[in-house]
Protein backbone atom coordinates (compact mmCIF):
# COMPACT_ATOMS: atom_id res chain seq x y z
CA UNK A 1 0.00 0.00 0.00
CA UNK A 2 1.24 3.50 -0.84
CA UNK A 3 2.81 5.52 1.94
CA UNK A 4 0.99 8.72 2.75
CA UNK A 5 3.65 9.78 5.25
CA UNK A 6 7.27 9.01 4.45
CA UNK A 7 10.01 10.13 6.80
CA UNK A 8 13.67 9.26 6.27
CA UNK A 9 16.48 10.02 8.69
CA UNK A 10 14.60 13.06 9.97
CA UNK A 11 16.69 14.97 12.49
CA UNK A 12 15.97 18.23 14.21
CA UNK A 13 18.45 20.08 16.36
CA UNK A 14 17.26 23.29 17.97
CA UNK A 15 20.12 25.75 18.22
CA UNK A 16 20.22 29.02 20.07
CA UNK A 17 20.67 32.30 18.21
CA UNK A 18 24.43 32.10 18.74
CA UNK A 19 24.73 28.49 17.59
CA UNK A 20 26.21 26.22 20.22
CA UNK A 21 25.59 22.51 20.76
CA UNK A 22 21.79 22.75 20.65
CA UNK A 23 19.06 20.37 21.68
CA UNK A 24 18.51 17.27 19.56
CA UNK A 25 14.71 17.01 19.53
CA UNK A 26 14.49 14.30 16.86
CA UNK A 27 17.16 11.85 15.88
CA UNK A 28 17.25 10.03 12.51
CA UNK A 29 13.58 9.18 12.50
CA UNK A 30 12.42 6.69 9.86
CA UNK A 31 8.69 6.29 9.57
CA UNK A 32 6.03 5.31 7.05
CA UNK A 33 2.31 5.58 7.43
CA UNK A 34 0.29 3.72 4.82
CA UNK A 35 -2.93 4.93 3.26
CA UNK A 36 -5.91 4.28 5.53
CA UNK A 37 -3.71 3.53 8.50
CA UNK A 38 -4.08 5.08 11.95
CA UNK A 39 -0.65 5.67 13.41
CA UNK A 40 -0.03 6.86 16.95
CA UNK A 41 3.12 8.58 18.13
CA UNK A 42 3.53 8.16 21.87
CA UNK A 43 6.16 9.43 24.22
CA UNK A 44 6.61 11.48 27.36
CA UNK A 45 6.73 15.27 27.22
CA UNK A 46 9.76 16.47 25.26
CA UNK A 47 10.17 13.18 23.40
CA UNK A 48 9.88 14.81 19.98
CA UNK A 49 6.24 14.11 19.06
CA UNK A 50 5.23 17.71 18.38
CA UNK A 51 8.58 18.40 16.67
CA UNK A 52 7.86 15.52 14.29
CA UNK A 53 4.38 16.87 13.50
CA UNK A 54 5.69 20.42 13.03
CA UNK A 55 8.28 19.12 10.56
CA UNK A 56 5.54 17.33 8.64
CA UNK A 57 3.55 20.55 8.49
CA UNK A 58 6.50 22.65 7.34
CA UNK A 59 6.29 24.88 10.42
CA UNK A 60 9.93 24.09 11.21
CA UNK A 61 12.70 22.80 8.98
CA UNK A 62 14.75 19.61 9.38
CA UNK A 63 18.42 19.75 10.31
CA UNK A 64 18.86 16.67 8.11
CA UNK A 65 16.74 13.95 6.55
CA UNK A 66 13.51 14.40 4.65
CA UNK A 67 9.78 14.30 5.19
CA UNK A 68 7.28 13.68 2.40
CA UNK A 69 3.49 13.62 2.36
CA UNK A 70 1.69 11.92 -0.54
CA UNK A 71 5.11 11.60 -2.20
CA UNK A 72 5.61 15.38 -2.29
CA UNK A 73 7.50 17.93 -0.22
CA UNK A 74 5.57 18.97 2.87
CA UNK A 75 5.48 22.62 1.73
CA UNK A 76 3.81 21.72 -1.57
CA UNK A 77 0.41 23.47 -1.76
CA UNK A 78 -1.15 20.35 -3.31
CA UNK A 79 -0.29 18.52 -0.10
CA UNK A 80 -1.98 21.20 2.03
CA UNK A 81 -5.25 20.63 0.15
CA UNK A 82 -5.21 16.97 1.26
CA UNK A 83 -4.24 17.69 4.84
CA UNK A 84 -6.19 18.43 8.00
CA UNK A 85 -4.34 19.50 11.14
CA UNK A 86 -5.55 19.92 14.67
CA UNK A 87 -3.00 21.66 16.94
CA UNK A 88 -2.28 20.47 20.46
CA UNK A 89 -3.91 23.42 22.18
CA UNK A 90 -6.12 25.01 19.59
CA UNK A 91 -5.52 28.76 19.63
CA UNK A 92 -7.65 30.65 17.17
CA UNK A 93 -8.61 34.23 16.40
CA UNK A 94 -10.62 35.17 19.45
CA UNK A 95 -12.38 38.07 17.72
CA UNK A 96 -14.23 35.55 15.56
CA UNK A 97 -17.14 33.29 16.41
CA UNK A 98 -16.90 29.55 15.89
CA UNK A 99 -18.83 29.81 12.64
CA UNK A 100 -16.77 32.77 11.36
CA UNK A 101 -13.54 30.86 12.02
CA UNK A 102 -14.73 27.86 10.05
CA UNK A 103 -15.87 30.11 7.20
CA UNK A 104 -12.51 31.90 7.21
CA UNK A 105 -10.59 28.64 6.90
CA UNK A 106 -13.11 27.27 4.37
CA UNK A 107 -12.40 30.31 2.17
CA UNK A 108 -8.67 29.60 2.40
CA UNK A 109 -9.38 26.07 1.18
CA UNK A 110 -11.28 27.57 -1.71
CA UNK A 111 -14.65 26.10 -0.68
CA UNK A 112 -17.24 27.88 -2.81
CA UNK A 113 -19.53 30.32 -1.03
CA UNK A 114 -22.61 28.25 -1.90
CA UNK A 115 -21.11 25.15 -0.28
CA UNK A 116 -19.56 26.93 2.70
CA UNK A 117 -22.74 27.18 4.75
CA UNK A 118 -23.61 23.49 4.36
CA UNK A 119 -20.04 22.36 5.08
CA UNK A 120 -19.79 24.58 8.17
CA UNK A 121 -23.27 23.54 9.39
CA UNK A 122 -22.43 19.85 8.97
CA UNK A 123 -19.12 20.15 10.81
CA UNK A 124 -20.57 22.20 13.66
CA UNK A 125 -23.24 19.50 14.08
CA UNK A 126 -20.62 16.75 13.87
CA UNK A 127 -18.57 18.17 16.74
CA UNK A 128 -21.67 19.18 18.72
CA UNK A 129 -21.11 22.94 18.48
CA UNK A 130 -24.15 24.06 16.48
CA UNK A 131 -25.66 25.88 19.43
CA UNK A 132 -22.44 27.79 20.19
CA UNK A 133 -21.74 28.80 16.60
CA UNK A 134 -22.34 32.51 17.24
CA UNK A 135 -20.31 32.71 20.43
CA UNK A 136 -16.93 34.50 20.27
CA UNK A 137 -14.00 32.09 20.50
CA UNK A 138 -12.59 34.08 23.44
CA UNK A 139 -15.57 32.83 25.46
CA UNK A 140 -15.10 29.17 24.49
CA UNK A 141 -13.94 26.63 27.06
CA UNK A 142 -10.90 24.46 26.34
CA UNK A 143 -13.15 21.58 25.36
CA UNK A 144 -15.14 23.75 22.95
CA UNK A 145 -11.92 25.01 21.33
CA UNK A 146 -10.81 21.40 20.96
CA UNK A 147 -14.04 20.58 19.14
CA UNK A 148 -13.77 23.59 16.85
CA UNK A 149 -10.12 22.58 16.34
CA UNK A 150 -11.26 19.22 15.04
CA UNK A 151 -13.99 20.77 12.89
CA UNK A 152 -11.52 23.13 11.16
CA UNK A 153 -9.22 20.16 10.50
CA UNK A 154 -12.04 18.45 8.61
CA UNK A 155 -13.14 21.41 6.46
CA UNK A 156 -11.46 20.14 3.30
CA UNK A 157 -12.50 16.50 3.86
CA UNK A 158 -8.79 15.65 4.15
CA UNK A 159 -7.21 12.37 3.13
CA UNK A 160 -4.64 12.75 5.93
CA UNK A 161 -5.42 13.99 9.41
CA UNK A 162 -2.65 15.08 11.73
CA UNK A 163 -3.88 15.39 15.29
CA UNK A 164 -1.75 16.62 18.15
CA UNK A 165 -3.11 15.40 21.51
CA UNK A 166 -6.70 15.43 20.24
CA UNK A 167 -8.39 14.73 23.57
CA UNK A 168 -6.12 16.58 25.98
CA UNK A 169 -8.05 18.92 28.23
CA UNK A 170 -11.39 17.31 27.49
CA UNK A 171 -13.74 15.89 30.11
CA UNK A 172 -14.37 12.12 29.90
CA UNK A 173 -17.56 12.54 27.85
CA UNK A 174 -15.88 14.96 25.44
CA UNK A 175 -12.85 12.68 25.08
CA UNK A 176 -15.14 9.71 24.41
CA UNK A 177 -17.01 11.66 21.71
CA UNK A 178 -13.79 12.76 20.00
CA UNK A 179 -12.44 9.19 20.14
CA UNK A 180 -15.65 7.93 18.50
CA UNK A 181 -15.32 10.59 15.86
CA UNK A 182 -11.75 9.51 15.11
CA UNK A 183 -12.95 5.90 14.88
CA UNK A 184 -15.62 7.01 12.40
CA UNK A 185 -13.01 8.85 10.32
CA UNK A 186 -10.87 5.73 10.43
CA UNK A 187 -13.83 3.70 9.14
CA UNK A 188 -14.17 6.20 6.29
CA UNK A 189 -10.64 5.22 5.26
CA UNK A 190 -8.81 8.38 6.27
CA UNK A 191 -5.14 8.16 7.12
CA UNK A 192 -4.63 9.43 10.64
CA UNK A 193 -1.40 10.35 12.37
CA UNK A 194 -1.66 11.47 15.90
CA UNK A 195 0.52 12.25 18.84
CA UNK A 196 -0.70 11.44 22.30
CA UNK A 197 0.55 10.55 25.72
CA UNK A 198 -2.76 8.86 26.59
CA UNK A 199 -1.69 5.28 26.00
CA UNK A 200 -5.09 3.63 26.39
CA UNK A 201 -6.38 6.00 23.70
CA UNK A 202 -3.57 5.02 21.35
CA UNK A 203 -4.16 1.34 22.09
CA UNK A 204 -7.87 1.71 21.25
CA UNK A 205 -7.52 3.77 18.08
CA UNK A 206 -4.25 2.89 16.36
CA UNK A 207 -3.28 0.22 13.89
CA UNK A 208 0.38 0.92 14.57
CA UNK A 209 2.27 2.78 17.24
CA UNK A 210 5.68 4.43 17.40
CA UNK A 211 7.26 5.03 20.79
CA UNK A 212 9.47 8.12 20.92
CA UNK A 213 11.85 8.82 23.76
CA UNK A 214 14.27 11.73 23.78
CA UNK A 215 14.01 12.05 20.01
CA UNK A 216 14.67 8.39 19.25
CA UNK A 217 12.10 5.95 17.92
CA UNK A 218 12.45 3.19 20.49
CA UNK A 219 9.78 0.85 19.18
CA UNK A 220 7.39 0.76 16.25
CA UNK A 221 4.78 -1.76 15.22
CA UNK A 222 1.24 -3.00 15.64
CA UNK A 223 -0.16 -3.28 19.15
CA UNK A 224 0.22 -7.09 18.88
CA UNK A 225 3.86 -6.72 17.92
CA UNK A 226 4.59 -4.31 20.73
CA UNK A 227 2.76 -6.09 23.53
CA UNK A 228 4.37 -9.34 24.72
CA UNK A 229 2.19 -12.47 24.75
CA UNK A 230 0.69 -13.33 28.17
CA UNK A 231 3.07 -15.41 30.27
CA UNK A 232 0.80 -16.07 33.23
CA UNK A 233 -2.64 -17.36 33.99
CA UNK A 234 -4.84 -16.05 36.78
CA UNK A 235 -7.46 -18.39 38.22
CA UNK A 236 -10.04 -17.19 40.72
CA UNK A 237 -11.58 -20.12 42.56
CA UNK A 238 -13.81 -20.77 45.60
CA UNK A 239 -13.90 -23.57 48.20
CA UNK A 240 -10.24 -24.54 48.30
CA UNK A 241 -8.93 -25.78 51.67
CA UNK A 242 -5.46 -25.10 53.14
CA UNK A 243 -3.89 -28.43 51.94
CA UNK A 244 -4.97 -27.64 48.37
CA UNK A 245 -3.37 -24.21 48.58
CA UNK A 246 -0.19 -25.77 49.90
CA UNK A 247 -0.10 -28.16 46.94
CA UNK A 248 -0.60 -25.25 44.55
CA UNK A 249 2.25 -23.44 46.26
CA UNK A 250 4.49 -26.46 45.74
CA UNK A 251 3.70 -26.25 42.01
CA UNK A 252 5.02 -22.69 41.95
CA UNK A 253 1.63 -20.94 41.90
CA UNK A 254 1.03 -17.83 44.04
CA UNK A 255 -2.22 -17.97 46.01
CA UNK A 256 -3.81 -14.86 47.47
CA UNK A 257 -7.07 -15.32 49.43
CA UNK A 258 -9.57 -12.48 49.13
CA UNK A 259 -13.32 -12.17 49.85
CA UNK A 260 -13.78 -15.93 50.36
CA UNK A 261 -12.05 -16.71 47.09
CA UNK A 262 -8.49 -17.49 46.12
CA UNK A 263 -6.62 -15.72 43.36
CA UNK A 264 -4.06 -18.13 41.92
CA UNK A 265 -1.34 -16.79 39.63
CA UNK A 266 0.72 -19.42 37.80
CA UNK A 267 2.97 -19.65 34.74
CA UNK A 268 0.92 -20.09 31.54
CA UNK A 269 2.41 -23.52 30.78
CA UNK A 270 1.14 -24.85 34.13
CA UNK A 271 -2.42 -23.67 33.63
CA UNK A 272 -3.83 -27.14 32.82
CA UNK A 273 -2.18 -28.76 35.87
CA UNK A 274 -3.42 -25.96 38.16
CA UNK A 275 -6.96 -26.27 36.80
CA UNK A 276 -6.91 -30.03 37.28
CA UNK A 277 -5.73 -29.64 40.88
CA UNK A 278 -8.43 -27.05 41.65
CA UNK A 279 -11.09 -29.42 40.26
CA UNK A 280 -9.71 -32.46 42.13
CA UNK A 281 -9.62 -30.64 45.47
CA UNK A 282 -13.26 -29.54 45.18
CA UNK A 283 -12.67 -25.94 44.17
CA UNK A 284 -15.23 -24.09 42.04
CA UNK A 285 -13.76 -22.12 39.15
CA UNK A 286 -14.96 -18.51 39.23
CA UNK A 287 -12.78 -16.74 36.69
CA UNK A 288 -9.93 -17.58 34.33
CA UNK A 289 -7.76 -14.80 32.99
CA UNK A 290 -4.72 -14.54 30.74
CA UNK A 291 -3.67 -10.96 31.48
CA UNK A 292 -1.61 -9.30 28.78
CA UNK A 293 0.65 -6.37 29.58
CA UNK A 294 -0.88 -3.06 28.50
CA UNK A 295 0.85 -0.55 26.28
CA UNK A 296 1.24 1.55 29.37
CA UNK A 297 3.28 -1.20 31.09
CA UNK A 298 5.42 -1.70 27.99
CA UNK A 299 5.94 2.04 27.72
CA UNK A 300 6.85 2.49 31.38
CA UNK A 301 9.31 -0.44 31.17
CA UNK A 302 10.89 1.09 28.09
CA UNK A 303 11.24 4.51 29.66
CA UNK A 304 12.62 2.97 32.85
CA UNK A 305 15.21 0.97 30.89
CA UNK A 306 16.29 4.10 29.04
CA UNK A 307 16.52 6.11 32.23
CA UNK A 308 18.75 3.43 33.79
Amino acid at each position, binding site marked *: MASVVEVQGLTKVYRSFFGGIGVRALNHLDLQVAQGETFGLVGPNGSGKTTCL*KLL*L*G*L*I*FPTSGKAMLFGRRVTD*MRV*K*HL*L*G*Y*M*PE*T*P*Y*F*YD*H*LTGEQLLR*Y*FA*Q*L*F*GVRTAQQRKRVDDLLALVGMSERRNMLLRHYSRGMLQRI*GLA*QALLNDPALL*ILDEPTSGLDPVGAYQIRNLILELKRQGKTILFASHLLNEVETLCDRVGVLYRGDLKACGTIDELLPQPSQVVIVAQGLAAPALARLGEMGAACVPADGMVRITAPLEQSEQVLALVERDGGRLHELLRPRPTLEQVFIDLVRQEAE
Partner: protein
Amino acid sequence: MRSILIIARNTVSEALSRIILQLILIFALMFLLLGFFFTYMTPGEEDKMLKDLGLTVITVFGLVLAIFIGVSLIQPEIERRTIYALLAKPVRRLEFVLGKYLGAVAVLAISMIVMGVVLVGALYLKQHMWNLGLLVALVGVFFSLMIMTALVMMISTFASSLLAIVGGFVFWAVGYGQSYMTQLAEHADNKVSSTLLQVMSAILPNFTYLDLRLPVVDGIPIPLRLLSKMGIYGLGYSIVVLAIAAILFNEREM
Protein backbone atom coordinates in the same frame (compact mmCIF):
# COMPACT_ATOMS: atom_id res chain seq x y z
CA MET B 1 -4.19 36.49 -4.68
CA ARG B 2 -7.42 35.06 -3.20
CA SER B 3 -5.63 33.96 -0.01
CA ILE B 4 -4.00 37.40 0.33
CA LEU B 5 -7.37 39.14 0.22
CA ILE B 6 -8.98 36.67 2.66
CA ILE B 7 -6.11 37.15 5.15
CA ALA B 8 -6.24 40.93 4.65
CA ARG B 9 -9.95 40.98 5.43
CA ASN B 10 -9.41 38.98 8.62
CA THR B 11 -6.57 41.34 9.59
CA VAL B 12 -8.88 44.35 9.19
CA SER B 13 -11.64 42.81 11.33
CA GLU B 14 -9.08 41.77 13.97
CA ALA B 15 -7.43 45.21 14.08
CA LEU B 16 -10.75 47.06 14.27
CA SER B 17 -11.80 44.87 17.21
CA ARG B 18 -8.71 45.89 19.20
CA ILE B 19 -9.46 48.35 22.00
CA ILE B 20 -5.94 49.88 21.89
CA LEU B 21 -6.30 50.88 18.25
CA GLN B 22 -9.75 52.31 18.82
CA LEU B 23 -8.34 54.30 21.74
CA ILE B 24 -5.47 55.71 19.66
CA LEU B 25 -7.94 56.84 17.01
CA ILE B 26 -10.30 58.37 19.60
CA PHE B 27 -7.38 60.24 21.22
CA ALA B 28 -6.28 61.52 17.80
CA LEU B 29 -9.77 62.87 17.12
CA MET B 30 -9.90 64.42 20.59
CA PHE B 31 -6.55 66.15 20.03
CA LEU B 32 -7.72 67.40 16.62
CA LEU B 33 -10.91 68.89 18.08
CA LEU B 34 -8.99 70.36 21.01
CA GLY B 35 -6.49 71.85 18.56
CA PHE B 36 -9.29 73.53 16.61
CA PHE B 37 -10.41 75.18 19.82
CA PHE B 38 -6.90 76.51 20.50
CA THR B 39 -6.66 78.09 17.05
CA TYR B 40 -8.98 80.85 18.35
CA MET B 41 -6.16 81.85 20.71
CA THR B 42 -3.99 82.90 17.73
CA PRO B 43 -6.12 85.53 15.96
CA GLY B 44 -5.16 86.11 12.36
CA GLU B 45 -3.17 82.87 12.26
CA GLU B 46 -6.12 80.51 12.73
CA ASP B 47 -5.83 78.76 9.34
CA LYS B 48 -2.07 78.35 9.65
CA MET B 49 -2.40 77.03 13.18
CA LEU B 50 -5.22 74.67 12.17
CA LYS B 51 -3.18 73.14 9.33
CA ASP B 52 0.00 72.88 11.42
CA LEU B 53 -1.66 71.35 14.44
CA GLY B 54 -3.94 69.12 12.39
CA LEU B 55 -1.14 67.66 10.28
CA THR B 56 1.12 67.21 13.33
CA VAL B 57 -1.60 65.37 15.27
CA ILE B 58 -2.44 63.14 12.27
CA THR B 59 1.25 62.38 11.64
CA VAL B 60 2.06 61.58 15.29
CA PHE B 61 -1.04 59.48 15.97
CA GLY B 62 -0.80 57.88 12.54
CA LEU B 63 2.76 56.75 13.21
CA VAL B 64 1.82 55.42 16.66
CA LEU B 65 -1.06 53.57 15.01
CA ALA B 66 1.25 52.22 12.30
CA ILE B 67 3.72 50.94 14.90
CA PHE B 68 1.01 49.21 16.94
CA ILE B 69 -0.65 47.68 13.89
CA GLY B 70 2.70 46.64 12.41
CA VAL B 71 3.74 44.91 15.58
CA SER B 72 0.44 43.04 15.87
CA LEU B 73 0.69 41.44 12.45
CA ILE B 74 3.15 38.55 12.77
CA GLN B 75 4.65 38.11 16.23
CA PRO B 76 1.31 37.68 18.08
CA GLU B 77 0.26 35.05 15.52
CA ILE B 78 3.40 33.09 16.45
CA GLU B 79 3.15 33.75 20.19
CA ARG B 80 -0.56 32.81 20.31
CA ARG B 81 0.10 29.91 17.91
CA THR B 82 -2.81 30.90 15.69
CA ILE B 83 -0.39 30.57 12.80
CA TYR B 84 -0.09 26.78 13.22
CA ALA B 85 -3.57 26.07 11.92
CA LEU B 86 -3.30 28.82 9.30
CA LEU B 87 -0.05 27.62 7.69
CA ALA B 88 -1.42 24.07 7.62
CA LYS B 89 -3.94 25.43 5.09
CA PRO B 90 -3.01 26.05 1.44
CA VAL B 91 -1.41 29.42 2.25
CA ARG B 92 2.14 30.32 1.24
CA ARG B 93 4.22 32.26 3.72
CA LEU B 94 4.55 35.07 1.19
CA GLU B 95 0.76 35.23 0.88
CA PHE B 96 0.50 35.42 4.65
CA VAL B 97 2.95 38.35 4.83
CA LEU B 98 1.28 40.21 1.95
CA GLY B 99 -2.23 39.57 3.30
CA LYS B 100 -1.29 40.83 6.73
CA TYR B 101 0.37 43.95 5.30
CA LEU B 102 -2.51 44.70 2.96
CA GLY B 103 -4.96 44.40 5.89
CA ALA B 104 -2.82 46.77 7.96
CA VAL B 105 -2.66 49.30 5.13
CA ALA B 106 -6.45 49.12 4.80
CA VAL B 107 -6.85 49.85 8.53
CA LEU B 108 -4.43 52.79 8.24
CA ALA B 109 -6.34 54.07 5.22
CA ILE B 110 -9.60 53.95 7.18
CA SER B 111 -7.97 55.80 10.10
CA MET B 112 -6.43 58.40 7.79
CA ILE B 113 -9.76 59.00 6.06
CA VAL B 114 -11.50 59.49 9.44
CA MET B 115 -8.83 61.91 10.71
CA GLY B 116 -8.41 63.59 7.31
CA VAL B 117 -12.14 64.22 6.90
CA VAL B 118 -12.22 66.00 10.29
CA LEU B 119 -9.21 68.21 9.41
CA VAL B 120 -10.18 68.99 5.81
CA GLY B 121 -13.80 69.53 6.89
CA ALA B 122 -12.78 71.95 9.64
CA LEU B 123 -10.60 73.93 7.23
CA TYR B 124 -13.39 74.02 4.65
CA LEU B 125 -15.77 75.44 7.26
CA LYS B 126 -13.26 78.25 7.91
CA GLN B 127 -12.07 78.97 4.36
CA HIS B 128 -15.13 77.83 2.37
CA MET B 129 -12.77 76.29 -0.20
CA TRP B 130 -10.99 72.95 -0.57
CA ASN B 131 -7.30 72.94 0.23
CA LEU B 132 -5.67 70.66 -2.35
CA GLY B 133 -2.20 71.02 -0.80
CA LEU B 134 -3.54 69.67 2.48
CA LEU B 135 -4.85 66.58 0.71
CA VAL B 136 -1.47 65.98 -0.92
CA ALA B 137 0.20 66.39 2.49
CA LEU B 138 -2.20 63.80 3.96
CA VAL B 139 -1.30 61.38 1.17
CA GLY B 140 2.37 61.95 2.08
CA VAL B 141 1.62 61.08 5.71
CA PHE B 142 -0.14 57.92 4.51
CA PHE B 143 2.94 56.84 2.54
CA SER B 144 5.05 57.39 5.69
CA LEU B 145 2.67 55.13 7.61
CA MET B 146 2.95 52.45 4.91
CA ILE B 147 6.75 52.51 5.23
CA MET B 148 6.62 52.45 9.03
CA THR B 149 4.19 49.48 9.07
CA ALA B 150 6.42 47.54 6.67
CA LEU B 151 9.52 48.28 8.78
CA VAL B 152 7.92 47.23 12.08
CA MET B 153 6.48 44.14 10.43
CA MET B 154 9.91 43.25 9.05
CA ILE B 155 11.49 43.53 12.53
CA SER B 156 8.76 41.37 14.04
CA THR B 157 9.54 38.53 11.61
CA PHE B 158 12.71 37.83 13.61
CA ALA B 159 12.45 39.79 16.88
CA SER B 160 10.07 40.17 19.80
CA SER B 161 7.14 42.59 19.83
CA LEU B 162 8.96 44.88 22.26
CA LEU B 163 12.01 45.10 20.02
CA ALA B 164 9.77 45.80 17.02
CA ILE B 165 8.09 48.68 18.89
CA VAL B 166 11.47 50.12 19.93
CA GLY B 167 12.73 49.65 16.37
CA GLY B 168 9.68 51.49 15.06
CA PHE B 169 10.33 54.53 17.24
CA VAL B 170 14.04 54.49 16.30
CA PHE B 171 13.12 54.47 12.58
CA TRP B 172 10.70 57.30 13.30
CA ALA B 173 13.42 59.40 14.91
CA VAL B 174 15.96 58.58 12.20
CA GLY B 175 13.42 59.06 9.41
CA TYR B 176 12.57 62.59 10.50
CA GLY B 177 16.14 63.42 11.51
CA GLN B 178 17.73 62.66 8.15
CA SER B 179 18.81 66.30 7.72
CA TYR B 180 20.98 65.98 10.86
CA MET B 181 22.53 62.83 9.43
CA THR B 182 23.34 64.66 6.19
CA GLN B 183 24.93 67.50 8.16
CA LEU B 184 26.94 65.01 10.21
CA ALA B 185 28.16 63.34 7.01
CA GLU B 186 29.22 66.71 5.61
CA HIS B 187 31.14 67.65 8.74
CA ALA B 188 32.60 64.22 9.51
CA ASP B 189 36.28 64.09 10.53
CA ASN B 190 37.27 61.44 8.04
CA LYS B 191 36.08 59.99 4.76
CA VAL B 192 35.14 56.59 6.24
CA SER B 193 32.70 58.14 8.72
CA SER B 194 31.34 60.42 6.07
CA THR B 195 30.76 57.56 3.59
CA LEU B 196 29.23 55.38 6.31
CA LEU B 197 26.79 58.12 7.27
CA GLN B 198 25.91 58.75 3.63
CA VAL B 199 25.23 55.03 3.06
CA MET B 200 23.12 54.86 6.23
CA SER B 201 21.24 57.95 5.14
CA ALA B 202 20.51 56.34 1.78
CA ILE B 203 19.36 53.02 3.27
CA LEU B 204 17.30 54.30 6.20
CA PRO B 205 13.86 55.75 5.56
CA ASN B 206 13.64 59.46 4.91
CA PHE B 207 10.24 60.65 6.05
CA THR B 208 11.15 64.27 5.26
CA TYR B 209 10.60 63.39 1.55
CA LEU B 210 6.98 62.77 2.44
CA ASP B 211 6.53 65.59 4.95
CA LEU B 212 4.77 68.57 3.35
CA ARG B 213 3.65 70.18 6.57
CA LEU B 214 5.79 73.34 6.33
CA PRO B 215 4.91 74.35 2.73
CA VAL B 216 1.23 73.60 3.37
CA VAL B 217 1.21 75.66 6.58
CA ASP B 218 3.00 78.55 4.84
CA GLY B 219 0.50 78.35 1.99
CA ILE B 220 3.14 77.54 -0.67
CA PRO B 221 1.42 75.87 -3.64
CA ILE B 222 2.17 72.15 -3.87
CA PRO B 223 2.63 70.86 -7.43
CA LEU B 224 0.59 67.72 -8.10
CA ARG B 225 3.58 65.99 -9.72
CA LEU B 226 5.01 65.76 -6.21
CA LEU B 227 2.32 63.18 -5.56
CA SER B 228 3.84 60.74 -8.06
CA LYS B 229 7.35 61.30 -6.64
CA MET B 230 6.07 60.61 -3.11
CA GLY B 231 4.18 57.59 -4.42
CA ILE B 232 7.29 56.14 -6.04
CA TYR B 233 9.33 56.65 -2.87
CA GLY B 234 6.61 55.42 -0.45
CA LEU B 235 5.53 52.39 -2.46
CA GLY B 236 9.06 51.54 -3.60
CA TYR B 237 10.49 51.66 -0.10
CA SER B 238 7.57 49.64 1.30
CA ILE B 239 7.93 46.97 -1.41
CA VAL B 240 11.66 46.56 -0.73
CA VAL B 241 11.06 46.27 3.04
CA LEU B 242 8.18 43.83 2.43
CA ALA B 243 10.42 41.69 0.23
CA ILE B 244 13.01 41.52 3.02
CA ALA B 245 10.23 40.69 5.53
CA ALA B 246 8.97 37.89 3.27
CA ILE B 247 12.47 36.41 2.90
CA LEU B 248 13.05 36.53 6.67
CA PHE B 249 9.62 35.06 7.41
CA ASN B 250 10.21 32.25 4.92
CA GLU B 251 13.18 31.13 7.02
CA ARG B 252 11.40 31.62 10.35
CA GLU B 253 10.64 28.53 12.43
CA MET B 254 7.33 28.49 14.30
